[in-house]
């Protein structure tokens, strides 16, 4: 039985065309699944569905065999305890220091002991290479630094699965690697992750599974070699040709 199963998810923002039209795949524990595909294919929406920011119309998400309910507030809160998401635009709280960004949810939401949380947060920020920036505000940090704080904030929640939504897309090229290094570190530690990324070299390097999506559907699933080098479907072949050419 798969650790995370996504079964036949339908979702739409307005009542017209569905953004997700029956997406399904599974992720094993410790696995890193990368979602790739053209923009508008529903990759980010799927991550938003997993954390309950977008309500699915139908379909199921199972974690460890147990279906996750997004129906009511209480169930949603429990579901969110399992996932943590890092956004493309970091979305750090602008009015809080790096340290406070990391500690605020464990202290205020999980009601944990502040001293203990703070100690852990410092360890996390040191791990992502920001031990010197504990008291900096987001607008004093570079994009890459902000994104690493955002990763530390997500990790502070001790999620079962970390969701990364195009975390390097908003970064200047020279800052991308520092964020990718942080993700590599997590990969080595066996963190289960679902990654939406356009960094094909990185996808090839870290993923154990690649899911190619188009128009709200999964078109092809396989290991990185299969999908990136030998795509079977015309749609995936076309996409790879376009993206690998540059």
């Amino acid at each position: 039985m798969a650790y995370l199963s996504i079964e036949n998810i339908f979702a739409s923002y307005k009542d017209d065309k569905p953004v997700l039209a029956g997406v399904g795949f599974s992720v094993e524990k410790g696995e890193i699944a990368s979602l790739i595909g053209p923009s508008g294919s529903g990759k980010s929406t799927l991550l938003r569905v997993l954390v309950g920011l977008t309500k699915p119309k139908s379909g199921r998400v199972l974690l460890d065999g147990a279906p996750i309910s997004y129906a009511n507030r209480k169930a949603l809160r429990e579901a969110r305890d399992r996932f943590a998401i890092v956004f493309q635009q970091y979305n750090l709280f602008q009015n809080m220091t790096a340290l406070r960004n990391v500690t605020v949810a464990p202290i205020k939401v999980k009601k944990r002991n502040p001293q203990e949380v703070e100690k852990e947060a410092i360890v996390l920020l040191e791990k992502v290479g920001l031990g010197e920036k504990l008291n900096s505000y987001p607008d004093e940090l570079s994009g890459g630094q902000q994104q690493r704080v955002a990763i530390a904030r997500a990790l502070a929640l001790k999620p079962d699965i970390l969701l990364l939504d195009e975390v390097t897309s908003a970064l200047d090229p020279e800052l991308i690697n520092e964020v990718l290094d942080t993700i590599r570190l997590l990969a080595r530690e066996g963190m289960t992750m679902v990654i939406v990324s356009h960094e094909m070299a990185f996808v090839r390097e870290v993923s154990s599974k690649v899911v190619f999506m188009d128009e709200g559907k999964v078109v092809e699933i396989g290991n990185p070699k299969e999908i990136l080098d030998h795509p079977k479907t015309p749609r995936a072949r076309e996409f790879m040709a376009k993206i690998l050419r540059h």
Partner: protein
Amino acid sequence: MSDSLLQEIPRFFTYYNCIFLLQAAWRTIALSAVGCVVGFAIGFFLAILRITRERHLLVVRIPSIGYVEFFRRVPFLVTLMFMFFTFQVLKFQFSVFTVAMITVCLIASGFVAEIVRAGIESVHITQWDAGEVLNFTLAQKLRLVIVPQAWKVILPPAFSFFISFIKDTALASQIGVIELTYAGKVFNNKGFSAILVFGTILIMYFIISYPLTRFGRWMEGKLGVSKH
């Protein structure tokens, strides 16, 4: 003419006239202060009701939108007259001062609600998302994330509204509240020089409103700047 004005000064600033002026000033201050404080509290609350998205809160959202849109659109004087006559018809034994007090709160809350809403909406939607995925409650999102960032958009228009609001309380004289403007008319009718009387009133308005401007600046410095 300036000679006669100078001669009039000691005759004008007698003990009883000063008491009368200070009482009138107190009413202006009370109307302004209560309007600002109560208006801010209610307005803040209305703004939050208005930005809620949950379907079951529709029953409170719609009246709050109606309230805000109504009181912002009707002239202060009309609202004042309306409240005055409504209370009379309903046989409420309210003094004109109380009627004016209630009216200033109604109007200020409507305006403040819009100012606060604009401030809250100036904070990027992604800040809400980030709070949401961290399982913050609505109150936590507002208190910890959104409102601290909204202050810098809320405070300048709020204080400029409060300052214009002090001036608007002059309209309470129209239903017979003896505040500063009314006092001015009384002295003028008694035959004191209009320049002397309204000059004094003018200075008193300034004395009331200037500290508020300073206070606004101080608040902006305290809450309205990016933190570093």
